[in-house]
């Protein structure tokens, strides 16, 4: 969390796309497209943002389009969000109007502490 405070948040603009693996010791705000795997402390998928793949973070805020799996103790889904896939969480907020297709399985906080390897299962 200290690294989070030190490093300025990374930002992907609406006309930016990344395909691959992203590892951040901090915050990542996505207005563009990401296809692949994201590991961060905090991830924000802004309205208009699109993520396809796996997201692992302490906190995830979704206001855009998420297609894939999310692993985070704290998850917030905004009204403008569209989610396809699974959201593993121990605390979740879903705003009225959000479009969530898939499951939101609960896991104890300890599950996320030991989350080094991703489960192989696919949504």
């Amino acid at each position: 969390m200290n690294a989070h405070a030190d490093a300025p948040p990374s930002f992907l603009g609406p006309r930016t796309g990344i395909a691959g693996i992203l590892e951040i010791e901090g915050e990542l705000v996505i207005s563009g497209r990401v296809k692949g795997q994201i590991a961060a402390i905090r991830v924000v998928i802004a309205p208009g943002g699109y993520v396809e793949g796996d997201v692992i973070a302490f906190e995830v805020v979704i206001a855009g389009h998420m297609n894939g799996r999310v692993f985070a103790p704290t998850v917030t889904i905004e009204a403008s969000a569209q989610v396809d896939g699974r959201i593993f969480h121990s605390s979740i907020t879903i705003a009225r109007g959000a479009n969530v297709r898939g499951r939101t399985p609960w896991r104890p906080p300890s599950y996320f502490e030991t989350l080094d390897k991703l489960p192989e299962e696919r949504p």
Partner: protein
Amino acid sequence: MNLFNRNDKPAEKPADKPDTPSAPPKPATPPAAQTAAAPKAPDIKPEPPKPAPLPTPTTTPTTKGASMASVISKALKITGELESTEDIQIDGHIDGDVRGVGVKIGQNAKVKGTVYGDEVELAGTIEGKIESKKVTLGGTARMTGDVWFQEIKIDSGAYISGNLKPELGKQDSKAEIKPVAKPAANVSPLSTANGAAHA
């Protein structure tokens, strides 16, 4: 989602065209005037000028939109390709190719791969290649690999290990010239040969 998109569009339009800010407010004021006039007081028509405050909320998204270039901070490591049709500021590590319009690579940044752009400003490290019309290598730059450019600036202190190739974009003209020359050379012997055969 629809509502959000609608809200986004007027914010983006002024960002794209800052030269014509007068155009977006004009269509914005008439509907605002109608909505304001309808529920409040239909009798009082002089009030519509009040929607003037509307442009101010639109200006705040405009400033946000203007600063919307992508930032890859120092804590971020990307393995894969990064592609953008806007400016990128890179302070982190990238293993893969980068495509952008204006690409700024900060002092502590490291890119392993090819950097494409209209304008590349390097203060960090690249192991790979630069292909850009305009290249600026700062004093702290460390470039390992070829640089393809049309225009270059190199500050003292920059380290370059590789070839400087100023013929970026000129390949095409060469490629065009060659095939033209070859057929021309081929045609004449053929025609003469044919002519000889006919004769």
